[in-house]
């Protein structure tokens, strides 16, 4: 049986495109443009889901994207909101969170237990005895949740779009569209966004049985669409309001991030349900939902219905219902004065009875409890909010439309920082103080009359234009005398309850009263204890009634209760939309391809990719073999490592020397051109942060290197301090612009000399010096360094020349047995040399005294970063010390790992920071933090391995090469 009615003007369905789909195993017909709910309702299917807690049958409530009891899964996707999600041909869907189908849901028994499940019941039980909690918890977890996640759902990557405008208008209803036209007329660039498939807001459904509303929409849309200054975006919602007027518009295809110079919030209001027993049965719906069904989807909401209202909107709904042939039994008006005479007369003229000072006491369900059989109506005193249940009258019907009032859709206004106040003339919260450049118009601003909403939109646009510097006449909105569109207390208590306030979470009136009785009588505490507004609809239909109930319980005016904080998102927003394209940048050095082609085993090093070692020339070796082989090549012939990831910063200007003196611990004032100095950076607490080299290039220029992982940090700190100290220094970060490589080993000079005419002899280029030289035809900085080997050259060339120079050196070294080496090899080589790595061998608290770096501290300088702290630390006794150690010769036991602890008498004394077997030395060597008394050469300490074995280690001097000559240490 279909309840689809004759074609409606402006309907959203396309009757030329019929389609069929499966719902809970049943074949259903619909049209393109239908939502799941509208198609099901048209097919006479009224049970669209089960509620979260009690598993009660639910139908449609709002058709406004908060029918969270009608959520579907198609086996691929879950928690699909049926009230707004379009049907598609061939879809196969069922309701979420049921066992055995929506009609026969095995969990529906929970509804009968509801008297025993009071508000916050889970806090009051399940924990005695403690051992049983996991049992109950498992049951609760299984009962909780809505849809099941599909673990095979693909990762969706949706790039963000970006937009800017003068005025962003949120909501394309009467006030929003009026604002758009007015703003565009001022020459402003306007974006209007609306979450509905079509613009118009209530103009698309609130007809009151007439056509004038549709005419208004047609004319207004004509003006909007013909104006080139207006971009109208539908089917996308404003997800939140963030700093700098950033508003993400969330559409089906992803997010557009809009930065607006001004924002007009014209987002309207959510219709609020009156609260009475069984107000949740399928067939009981908001008046605006009934109107949406009629005008958007051409579906008759029910055949014989009752309208319960506490404002004039119920009368308009009644007229709409009557216009499509619904037998409207009565309008039940909770107010004592009823509607203005002309409106109520129109309703009476349709043969509809109007009962003022009345309420629905309860809905009488059908025998299967899946629908409406009748309503029980009784007198109602709207001041005392008392229902006279002794005088009930039963009206039979199969549907109820409810209109008790409105709650402003003010979430974005709150997020923008708007102060709201309660306005008794409309019985709702309205903006009181708006932030600069933010405006509100229409229902969200407490303006309901249709003429006034147009003017209010224009007023907001004029104010936005003035804010943006336009000269524009002020628009005034005359106050329209009308009864408040919202009822101050549309709540009918019932001894048997089931009068729902929050449909997401199945929270009844008594739950609020009892929560208050238990001390949760502050709106924020009440929210957390009852969970009102914490469900997927975020309180869109429940928060206002919760506030009204609490005000009544505490006998305080509503404004004293206040509201809870409205946080993003306006509607739940897909993770894939928010995450966007998943931006994970990688950086390649100039020699990257070469490493890959030559067997480099590439590892992440921050954003960079670096070879750890090579499976050189197609050979297959274990990591251990490869590392030892490359290390031996460096010790015995030559090796080369790609060091392009080093931080490289040019520091120049009149104060360059002074800057380095303050920034680093060393002395730079007497440094000669071409000389390098160790650049040790501390933080204010004296903790070691970075060590690099600073080479003087000329009187006012240094070339400074940093550890690879600190390149960005050091550059940032330099920039910060240049500003702070007001020095004449310019910084250029050359990290990415320069390629660097270190050629190391006894044959390195011989190899390099074949590629340069420069004098690189020991006399001309001793350790710690740099020259500018042509290498393989490329202008290069050539520096003698000794990090991995006594003889080594660090060569810096422009990025583009990097690969060329690298290849030339490799070719020149071929006959000398040169090998490329990776970072794992570098770790071993520098260990053999006795060089510690900051943040590998040190941690977030290590100072230079603990790490043998006193020699680098020029304490006689007037200042350097961390010096003040060091002066204090120097007077204290050390509590740890970084030492070099060896394990016994031919050690074969349980090999310690880095971060194994040094244990003495059952106490932690330190830890291993580096450890490796060196084939060259044929020993296991390492660094460890130990107690100071264990730190002198020759003393021993114990390392506890992963398996708990204690391994003896002996402190030795660095570099470790003396082990080669001296067997006995």
């Amino acid at each position, binding site marked *: 049986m279909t309840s689809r009615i004759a074609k409606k003007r402006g309907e959203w369905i396309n009757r030329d495109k019929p389609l069929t789909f499966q719902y809970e195993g049943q074949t259903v017909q619909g049209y393109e443009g239908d939502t799941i709910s509208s198609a099901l309702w048209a097919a006479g299917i009224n049970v669209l889901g089960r509620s979260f807690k009690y598993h009660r049958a639910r139908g449609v409530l709002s058709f406004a994207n908060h029918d969270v009891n009608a959520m579907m899964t198609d086996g691929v996707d879950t928690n699909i909101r049926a009230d707004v999600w379009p049907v598609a041909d061939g879809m196969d869907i069922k309701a979420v969170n049921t066992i055995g189908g929506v009609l026969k849901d095995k969990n529906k028994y929970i509804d009968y237990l509801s008297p025993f499940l009071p508000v916050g019941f889970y806090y009051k039980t399940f924990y005695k005895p403690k051992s049983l909690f996991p049992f109950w918890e498992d049951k609760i977890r299984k009962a909780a949740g809505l849809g099941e996640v599909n673990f095979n759902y693909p990762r969706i990557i949706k790039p963000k779009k970006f937009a800017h405008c003068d005025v962003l208008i949120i909501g394309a209803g009467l006030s929003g569209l009026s604002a758009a036209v007015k703003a565009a007329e001022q020459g402003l660039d306007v974006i209007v966004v609306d979450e509905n498939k079509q613009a118009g807001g209530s103009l698309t459904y609130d007809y009151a049985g007439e056509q004038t509303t549709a005419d208004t929409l047609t004319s207004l849309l004509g003006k909007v669409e013909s104006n080139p200054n207006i971009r109208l975006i539908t089917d996308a919602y404003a997800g939140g309001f963030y700093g700098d007027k950033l508003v993400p518009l969330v559409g089906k295809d992803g997010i557009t991030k809009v930065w607006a110079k001004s924002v007009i919030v014209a987002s309207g209001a959510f219709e609020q349900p009156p609260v009475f027993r069984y107000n949740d049965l399928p067939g009981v719906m908001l008046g605006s939902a009934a109107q949406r069904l009629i005008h958007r989807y051409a579906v008759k909401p029910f055949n014989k219905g009752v309208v319960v209202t506490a404002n004039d909107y119920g009368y308009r709904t009644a007229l709409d219902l009557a216009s499509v042939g619904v037998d409207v039994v009565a309008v039940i008006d909770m107010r004592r004065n009823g509607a203005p005479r002309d409106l109520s007369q129109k309703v009476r003229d349709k043969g509809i009875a109007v009962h003022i000072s009345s309420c629905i006491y309860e809905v009488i369900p059908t025998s299967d409890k899946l629908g409406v059989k009748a309503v029980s109506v009784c007198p109602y005193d709207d001041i005392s909010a008392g229902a006279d249940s002794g005088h009930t009258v039963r009206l039979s019907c199969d549907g109820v439309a409810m209109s008790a009032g409105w709650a402003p859709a003010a979430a974005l206004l709150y997020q923008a920082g708007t102060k709201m106040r309660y306005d008794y003339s409309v019985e709702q919260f309205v903006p009181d103080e708006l932030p600069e450049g933010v405006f509100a118009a229409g229902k969200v601003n407490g303006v309901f009359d249709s003429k006034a909403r147009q003017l209010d939109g224009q007023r907001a646009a004029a104010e936005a234009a003035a804010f943006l510097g336009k000269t524009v006449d002020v628009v005034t909105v005359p106050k329209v005398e009308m009864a408040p569109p919202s009822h101050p207390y549309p709540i009918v208590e019932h001894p048997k309850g089931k009068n729902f306030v929050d449909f997401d979470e199945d929270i009844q009136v008594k739950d609020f009263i009892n929560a208050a009785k238990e001390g949760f009588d502050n709106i924020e505490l009440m929210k957390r204890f009852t969970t009102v507004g914490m469900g997927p609809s975020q309180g869109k239909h429940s928060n206002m009634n919760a506030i009204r109930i609490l005000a009544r319980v505490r006998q305080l005016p509503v404004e004293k209760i206040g509201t809870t904080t409205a*946080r993003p998102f306006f509607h739940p927003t897909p993770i894939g939309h928010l995450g966007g394209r998943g931006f994970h940048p990688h950086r390649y050095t100039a020699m990257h391809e070469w490493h890959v082609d030559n067997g480099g085993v590439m590892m992440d090093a921050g954003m960079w990719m670096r070879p750890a070692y090579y499976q050189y020339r197609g050979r297959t070796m274990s990591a251990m073999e490869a590392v030892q082989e490359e290390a031996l090549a460096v010790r015995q012939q030559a090796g080369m490592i790609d060091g392009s990831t080093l931080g490289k910063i040019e520091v120049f200007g009149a104060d360059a020397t002074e800057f380095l003196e303050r920034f680093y611990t060393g002395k730079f004032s007497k440094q000669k051109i071409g000389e390098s100095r160790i650049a040790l950076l501390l933080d204010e607490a004296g903790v070691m942060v970075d060590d690099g080299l600073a080479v003087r290039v000329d009187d006012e220029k240094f070339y400074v290197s940093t550890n690879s992982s600190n390149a960005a940090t050091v550059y940032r700190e330099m920039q910060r301090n240049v500003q702070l100290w007001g020095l004449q220094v310019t910084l250029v970060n050359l990290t990415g612009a320069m390629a660097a490589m270190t050629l190391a080993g006894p044959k390195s000079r011989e190899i390099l000399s074949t590629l340069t005419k420069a004098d690189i002899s020991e006399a001309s280029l001793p350790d710690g010096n740099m020259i500018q030289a042509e290498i393989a035809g490329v202008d290069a900085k050539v520096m003698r360094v000794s990090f991995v080997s006594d003889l080594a050259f660090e060569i810096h060339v422009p990025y583009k020349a990097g690969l060329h120079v690298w290849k030339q050196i490799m070719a020149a070294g071929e006959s000398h047995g040169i090998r490329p080496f990776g970072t794992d090899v570098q770790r071993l080589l520098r260990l053999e040399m006795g060089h510690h790595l900051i943040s590998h061998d040190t941690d977030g608290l290590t100072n230079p005294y603990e790490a043998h770096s006193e020699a680098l501290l020029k304490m006689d300088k007037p200042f350097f970063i961390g010096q003040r702290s060091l002066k204090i630390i120097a007077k204290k006794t050390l509590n740890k010390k970084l030492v070099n150690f060896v394990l016994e010769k031919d050690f074969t036991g349980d090999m310690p790992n880095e971060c194994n602890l040094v244990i003495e008498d059952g106490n932690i004394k330190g830890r291993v920071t580096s450890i490796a077997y060196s084939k060259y030395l044929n020993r296991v060597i390492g660094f460890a933090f130990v107690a100071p008394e264990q730190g002198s050469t020759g003393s021993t300490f114990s390392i506890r391995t992963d398996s708990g074995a204690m391994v003896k280690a002996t402190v030795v001097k660095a570099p470790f090469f003396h082990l080669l000559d001296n067997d006995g240490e």
Partner: protein
Amino acid sequence: MPLGLLKYGLSSEHPAPRFFRDCTEPKKSYDAVIIGGGGHGLAAAYYLAKDYGITNVAVLEKGYIGGGNTGRNTTIVRSNYLTPEGVNFYDASVKIYEDLSEELDLNLFYSTRGHFTLAHTESAMRTMRWRAEVNKHVGVESYVVGPEEISKACPQLDISCSGQAPILGALYHAPGSVARHDAVAWGYAKEADRMGVEIFQMTEVTGIDTKGGKVVGVNTSKGYISTNRVLSAVAGFTPRITEMVDLQTPIVIHPLQACVSEPMKPWLDTILVSGSLHVYVSQSSRGELVMGSSLDPYEFHSTRSSLDFVEGLTTHITDMFPFLSNVKVVRQWGGMADITPDFAPIMGKTPLEGFYLDAGWGTWGFKATPISGKTMAETIAKDMAPDLIKSFRLSRFEDYELTGEKGAASVGH
């Protein structure tokens, strides 16, 4: 269904009393005043009453109880810290938590789910081993596990993280738990109130009155209260309180944000943290994924949300769980984290006699709620900090004796 619920169905009047009285007018004087009605302040009040019989105590809360970071954290409880001092302290907290539902006669939903700190780099693996070794030494069940064991506990996790940051291993911490954070505050409030402590909500401290280097009272929005013992337990508002008494601390305030998804049927049984991807995630008993990320990188005294945060977090969540692309984020929020230079709290006495500080709780405050309450109660009662919190004293910053927990803070800082 447990029998304890029967009475609710069978009695016509709601058979449950108030959790705590509705205190409105403070007395003129108290033995101790606690500023801040969050978990820490309420726990301190509870233990003052219970352990030391000091019940003439006022808790002053400028908003509602548990409304600050107690209600904003992602509810994770663990003790897998880096320093022996830290491990011992948080382990003591875990041990109290385990029996706290019974002690407070309120189900806190304390749920031991196991906690994995994922390592995506060799250097992270080293830190995991370091933490495991220290934990083991102190007797806390933490150990390094490989990808297979992680997959076994969470088969849905993409070990390669969509190829972006392959997981090399993890620090597994068996006692890792989650709890209903609000309930912790309510439970302490309930029992403290029962013993006589008075809790004043919507009551703001506007000044602290001192005489001769001693605290003598506090000015509040509800009038002057004389007392010679004041505890400040206000997390992100600590600088506002310490400046009232000219006390310098190295605390800086950074926003810390979090978000929750729509409810879904349970699938994530463990608690997962990834330092490299800046993600921590668990699934609540309501079915929501509770997700957090690293601190915002700037100092800022605000609880406002940013889009940037949720964009970054969701990107990384889909690295780990690609199938979550169409699961929706319902709500995001922020808290104000009071960060110290060494990522350890500041607890104990201060140079001002009678002024006690419980602060510097950054991103690690919720898990310490019981033990901080207990030790601060002892500090106030005896005017001397117990050994367990000596290394968290304020003077450590002058003495250069920091307690370096930087490596154990759950996500990158």
